[in-house]
C-alpha cells in the first residue's frame, strides 16, 4: 500500500521525529480500528507543532502514541536521538519526565481527593528531587508562574477550582519536572473563550520561560493557528497537509483544510454563515474500514476516479508547504503515479 510519504520531514536535528507511526486497536472478529496510519512528523527544538482534525481522526492517539501509551503498532518515535518505541521498562521511565502531557478535561485529570500542593509535588516526589521542603519551594514557584497563589490555593482540592484554574494546575504539574516536550491534548476545548485566551497566553509564556517544545492538539483551527509554528492537518488517521500556519490559513490547498477553515464561526454578523458554503456535510467514515485511495474522497467536493485508486503522496507544492492530495486547490494536480512514487522516497 502506498504510504503517505515523508517529504515533509526536515533534515537535520529534530527534537522529535516520528516516522510511519501506525496505531491499530483490535475490534473483535479479526477487525481492527485503524486509528493512526503511517503518520510521520517532526518537531524542532523550541517549535510548536499544531495537530488539527475532527474528533475521531486520530490526533489524540498520535499524541499518546508518542508518549508510548498505548505503544504504537509499528513505526518509530525518536526523541532526542533515542527510539522510544524500542525502549522498555526502566529505560522508558527514565525518558518520560522529559516529555509531559496536558489533557483535555482539566477537572477529571486531577485526583479529586488530593490537595493542590500534593498534586503538583507528586512528580518531584516520584523522582526523589530534593527533600520535602525544597520540593514545596519548587511547587510554590511553579504555581506562581502559572498564576496561582500557593498560600491561598495550596491546601485546596480540585473541586474548589474553576475549569480554567484546574487547567493551570495541570500545566503546573506538567512543568514541575522541567520537561523538554509538552504534549497538549485539547487543553482549551473544555473552556470558555475568555478563559481559553488566558490559558493560551499562559502556554505561550511558559513555552518561552521553560524553553519548551510543544505539540498542540486541537480541533479548533483558530486556536491552533494562534499557538503554532507549523500545523499538521489530520484526517482519519492520515496527514493531509503540513504548513506554517499563516501560509496554511491564507492558502489552504487540501480540500479538507479548506472545509475546516470554512466552518470556523466568525464573530462578524456581516458574514452570513450560510454563505461560506463548503462546510462539510457527511459523517466521518468508519476507521474500521477506511475508504480506499484518498481517505477524504467520500466527503471531498473535488474527488475523482483517481482518488479511489491511488493514495495521494505528501509533496511540497510551495516552499515548506506540503499536501497529500491529487487535486489540490490553487495548484497543479499531482503528477501521475511513477514520478509521485519516486519522490516519496521509496514508499511502497
Amino acid at each position, binding site marked *: 500500500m502506498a504510504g503517505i510519504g515523508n517529504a515533509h520531514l526536515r533534515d537535520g536535528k529534530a527534537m522529535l521525529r516520528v516516522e510511519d507511526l501506525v496505531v491499530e486497536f483490535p475490534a473483535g472478529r479479526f477487525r481492527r480500528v485503524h486509528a493512526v496510519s503511517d503518520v510521520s512528523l517532526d518537531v524542532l527544538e523550541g517549535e510548536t507543532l499544531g495537530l488539527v482534525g475532527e474528533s475521531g481522526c486520530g490526533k489524540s492517539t498520535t499524541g499518546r502514541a508518542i508518549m508510548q501509551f498505548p505503544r504504537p503498532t509499528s513505526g518509530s518515535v525518536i526523541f532526542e536521538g533515542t527510539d522510544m518505541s524500542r525502549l522498555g521498562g526502566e529505560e522508558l521511565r527514565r525518558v518520560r519526565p522529559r516529555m509531559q502531557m496536558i489533557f483535555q478535561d482539566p477537572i477529571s485529570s486531577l485526583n479529586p481527593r488530593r490537595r493542590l500542593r500534593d498534586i503538583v509535588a507528586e512528580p518531584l516526589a516520584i523522582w526523589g528531587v530534593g527533600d520535602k521542603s525544597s520540593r514545596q519551594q519548587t511547587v510554590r514557584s511553579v504555581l506562581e508562574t502559572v498564576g496561582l497563589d500557593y498560600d491561598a490555593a495550596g491546601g485546596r482540592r480540585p473541586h474548589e477550582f474553576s475549569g*480554567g484554574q484546574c487547567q493551570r494546575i495541570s500545566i503546573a504539574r506538567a512543568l514541575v519536572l522541567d520537561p523538554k516536550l509538552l504534549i497538549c491534548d485539547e487543553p482549551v476545548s473544555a473552556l*470558555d473563550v*475568555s478563559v481559553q485566551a488566558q490559558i493560551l497566553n499562559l502556554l505561550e509564556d511558559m513555552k518561552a520561560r521553560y524553553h519548551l517544545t510543544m505539540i498542540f492538539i486541537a480541533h479548533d483551527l483558530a486556536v491552533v493557528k494562534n499557538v503554532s509554528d507549523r500545523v499538521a492537518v489530520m484526517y482519519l488517521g492520515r496527514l493531509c497537509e503540513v504548513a506554517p500556519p499563516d501560509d496554511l490559513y491564507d492558502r489552504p490547498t487540501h480540500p479538507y483544510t479548506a472545509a475546516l477553515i470554512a*466552518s470556523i464561526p466568525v464573530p*462578524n454578523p456581516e458574514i452570513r454563515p450560510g454563505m461560506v458554503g463548503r462546510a462539510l456535510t457527511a459523517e466521518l467514515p468508519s476507521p474500521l474500514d477506511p475508504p480506499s485511495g484518498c481517505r477524504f474522497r467520500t466527503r471531498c467536493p473535488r474527488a475523482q476516479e483517481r482518488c479511489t485508486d491511488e493514495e495521494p503522496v505528501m509533496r511540497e507544492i510551495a516552499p515548506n508547504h506540503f499536501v497529500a492530495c491529487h487535486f489540490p486547490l490553487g495548484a497543479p494536480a499531482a503528477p501521475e503515479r511513477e514520478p509521485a512514487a519516486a519522490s516519496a522516497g521509496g514508499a511502497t
Partner: protein
Amino acid sequence: MSGSGPVGDGEPAGGLADEPGKDGAGPGPEEPAPRRRRTIRERLKRARVPAIPEAMERRRLRRSVERLPLERPEGELLLDVEDLRTSFSTPRGMVRAVDGVSFSIDRGQTLGIVGESGSGKTVLSRSIMGLLPAHNVERGGQVRFEGQELTGLPSSEMRHIWGVEIAMVFQDPMTSLNPVMRIGRQITEGLRYHLGQSAGEARENAVALLQSVGIPEPERRMRQYAHELSGGMRQRVTIAIALACGPKLLLADEPTTALDVTVQAQILNLLQEKQRERFMAMILVTHDLGVVAGRTDEIAVMYAGKIVEKASTAVLFTQMRMPYTEALMRSIPRVEDHSHTRLLAITGRPPDLVNPPPGCRFAPRCPYAQERCTVEEPPLLLGDTEDHAFACWYPVGTKEGQAALERNLSAGRPQTLAAVASTQVAS
C-alpha cells in the same frame, strides 16, 4: 419488544389498582392473556386523558391547523420575561444566579444569550423552562408565554408546555438522550402523548423528522440507541425530538459546545434552517460570540446574573458599548491574525455571586472602571438607538469612555495596561 417489560411488571399491580375504581365501562381484568396488553394501554390512556385540560385540547386542535409554517404577523410578542430572579441557597449563602433579567421575544425571532460560564445563562434558560430543582431555590419575576404566566405552574401543567410550546436542546447530547431507549421511541413519545398520534402515524412522522434533521437511513437509526451514534448525530436526534411537536420557541442551551468545529457549523446551520422554516422563535445560549454572529436577530450579553448589554446583532458587533462585550470579543482567537498574536484575556474571574462586588459587577476586571463604578451600579438603559441598551457609566466608543481609559492608563491600572498592550500587538 420494549413493551413486554412494563406489561409483565405492571400487570398484577395495575390489576389491583384498577379493581376498586372500575366503572364497568372498561374491559374486565380477567380477560385472556392476548387482550391484557390492550387493557393496560387503555387504562393508561384513561389515566392520562383527565390530566389534559381543555386548554390543552384547544391547543391541540389549533395546532393541527397551524402546524405548517405560515407567515404569521411579525412583531407579535411570544415570550416576555420580566425581572426574573433565581437564587440558590447554599451553605455559604444565597447565590444570585439570575438577578433581575428582563427581555422579550417576538414570534420567529432569534435571541442570542452570551456570557462566560458562571454568568447565569444556563440558569436563566432553565428558569424560563421551569426546570429548576425543587428545593433550595428562590425565584421571582415573571415569565409570560403567549400571555400565560409560567412561573409557579406545577410540573403537571408545565408538561403540556414542555415540548409542545417550548422545547429545549441541551448541551451534552449523550446525557440528554435516554441510553436505554431506542431513538425512535424517544421521538414518538412526544408525538403520541402530546399530539395523540397513533403508533403508525407517530412512526412515520419520526422518520420524516429524522430525515429533515439530516440523518441518513432514518429507518435504521430509529432502532438504534444513543451510544451507537456520533456526537453530531446525537445532537441532531435531540433537535428532532425538540422539533417533534412543533414548538413555538426553541431554547438551545450551548447546543454545540460539546461538538467539533465542523459539526458545530452543521448543527448551527440546521438549527437556523429549522427556525426559519417553522417560523419558530429561538434562544441560542452560548459563550462564543462567534456562534451567535450572523445567526441571531438580537443578542443579550450576560455577566454575573444580569444582562449588561442588549442590541440587535449588527449594532452590537459594530458599536458595542459595554467593556465586557468588547473584552469577550477580543478574547476570541481569530484566523485572520498572525500566529502567536497575543490574545486579550479578560483578567481575573467572574465575581462570586454570593457576595457580588458593589457597584458595577464587572468593575474589578474592567479596563475602563472609575471610582463611580465601584460605588454606583449602572442601570440597563437605552443608548443612542432605540434597540440598544447597556449598563455602563463609561461606555466604549464614547467621550466618557475614552477619557476613563486614558485616565486609567496614566494611573497604570493593570487591567487597562493589559488590554491596551494586546491591542497594540494585534494592530
